[in-house]
């Protein structure tokens, strides 16, 4: 049973009187516990596709099933619940909440979104902070840690709810090579340990080398599907 099933996905943006077709009849299937990347030049539709998979946007036409749920039929509230229960997000700019500490940022989805009991919440947050190597920084605020550390916190936040799928939009774009590899390693480790599916949208060859499958987008169309080196390692 595939985790994601996209059929003829089309997304058209209207900018004044101009219509821009960001995705043109894209179809694909992704199995659970995959490590996948969408690549392509700017404007190829990578981020649009990730937004659709992440229930942040709705397709203009076509069907998209994520975890067997037709996401285009979800209301705003249902979409928020679905994201909170099934998805994790990692952003290029980390997007940590500046008024919360490292610990509180990771705790946020469990507390505000899922209402997980205190003891379990604490165990899960501490466990993930240890995994991403940020336990010693847990009381610091985002503006007190480096970019790499922020992205590690973002990875922990994305995984703390035990999601089935993590969507990462250019997760290494703002990181140096060493830190980027460290973050990719952590994600791979999470995938292997918990069976989480990771989908990246990236230009970064470091990620492309590490993923199992690479989907190439160009001008809104899916033009290729290749095996990555990560897949050969696995």
């Amino acid at each position: 049973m595939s985790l994601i099933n996209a059929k003829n996905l089309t997304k058209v943006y209207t900018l004044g009187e101009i219509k821009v077709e960001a995705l043109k009849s894209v179809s694909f299937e992704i199995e659970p516990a995959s490590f996948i990347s969408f690549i392509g030049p700017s404007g190829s539709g990578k981020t649009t596709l990730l937004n659709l998979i992440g229930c942040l946007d709705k397709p203009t036409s076509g069907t998209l099933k994520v975890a067997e749920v037709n996401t285009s039929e979800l209301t705003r509230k249902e979409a928020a619940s679905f994201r909170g229960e099934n998805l994790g997000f990692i952003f290029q700019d980390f997007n940590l909440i500046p008024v919360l500490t490292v610990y509180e940022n990771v705790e946020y989805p469990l507390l505000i979104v899922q209402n997980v009991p205190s003891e379990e919440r604490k165990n899960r947050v501490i466990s993930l902070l240890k995994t991403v190597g940020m336990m010693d920084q847990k009381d610091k605020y985002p503006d007190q840690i480096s970019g790499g550390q922020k992205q590690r916190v973002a990875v922990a936040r994305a995984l703390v709810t035990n999601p089935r799928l993590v969507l990462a939009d250019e997760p290494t774009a703002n990181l140096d090579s060493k830190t980027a590899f460290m973050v990719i390693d952590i994600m791979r480790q999470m995938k292997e340990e918990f069976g989480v599916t990771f989908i990246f949208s990236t230009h970064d060859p470091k990620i492309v080398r590490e993923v199992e499958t690479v989907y190439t987008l160009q001008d809104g169309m899916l033009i290729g599907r290749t095996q990555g080196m990560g897949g050969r390692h696995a």
Partner: protein
Amino acid sequence: MLKLFKIAVRNLTRYKRRTLLTSSLIAIGVMFVLVFVAASGSFKYIMIGQITDSMLGHIQVHKRGYVASIDSLPLTLNLSEKAEKKLEKTLGEILEIEAFSPRIKFGGMFSNFIETTNIRVNGVYPEKEIATVPLFLSRIKQGEKSIKEGEILIPELLATGLKVKVRDTVVVIATNRDGSVNGKQFVIGGIIESVTGPGGRDGYMHIKDAMEVLRMDEMEVSEVAIRLKDFSKLNAVSNRLDEMLSKELNTQGKQVFDVRTWEKLSPFYNVARMIDVMTFFIKLMLIAIVLVSIMNVMIMAVFERIREIGTISAIGTKPKKILSLFLIEGFFLGVFGAAVGNILAIGLVFLINLVNISFNFGRQSGLVLSPSLSAGDILWISAIVIIVSVVAALQPAFKASRMEPVDALRHI
């Protein structure tokens, strides 16, 4: 929910200067409104106290129709002895009544044997009058502070005009109920200060002397002034008394008695109402200040945190929680502003009381303004501010909660 409170407080402290400025604006507004309420309330109650405790009493009972003709002090509309006895019996049954004073009011001529002028006189039982209007004695500026038989207390304007002084002999002449004229010689027992309002320039004599001047064989009273133990029960007691007396009907089946509170007898009531209206508009201004400042801050907060809203929305925060987060921020701004405003107001009221600001009202001078803040005022104003703060945050909060995460995340 507690976590949302914590996040809201941290968001407010993130922009310290802006939060402080907005809260200061609210605090200053709250302070001024509370001090105005306290000072105007003090002024109002001093004035009401002066009027009711100097001459009017809290409630008055007349024969129906008397008040409409009160300027001519018609003796034909006096309450009969029988009616007055019934009234006294009824008043005795109401425990909230502290004292009452029957009065015979009449108009007459006042002569110092050289000049003559008109005078309005109240015939009263001295003890009952003093018990009902306890500030009466303080109005006696010259002479003994009492009303004795054979003596008359005259208003100071009359004493000045006719150049008479205490212990001078004068004559009061009045037309009786049957149309005949009678006069009686009096000694001026004292000169009383005039006060603003109806009856404020009347003379006073013992009720027995008034009966003699008017050649009354039986007691007939023009009005009965009533003092309550607790002024705040004015309307309740007035309504109860009115209900009890409404059963008393004359031979035509119409009500005998007419019960009126001081508000329906004194033109100062309109001044008091004006003070209330001014207070209301001052409160409206406060609401406007709070509304504009909170709305401004919250709109800014939403605009500055669009990406953050997109992030929390993307990771699954429901729109209702995003709405709550911004409403809580507005709520805290209101609470903080109101709390600081209350403290400042209490301090300022304390200072005003310390300084002893005095003022004149009509012919009364040296009245000391003594503002006080009731817990009710503080709670009421604070509640208004907090509710308005939340209402002002509603639109920006709603906007934040309705934001599409994909658009918010794209915002730079």
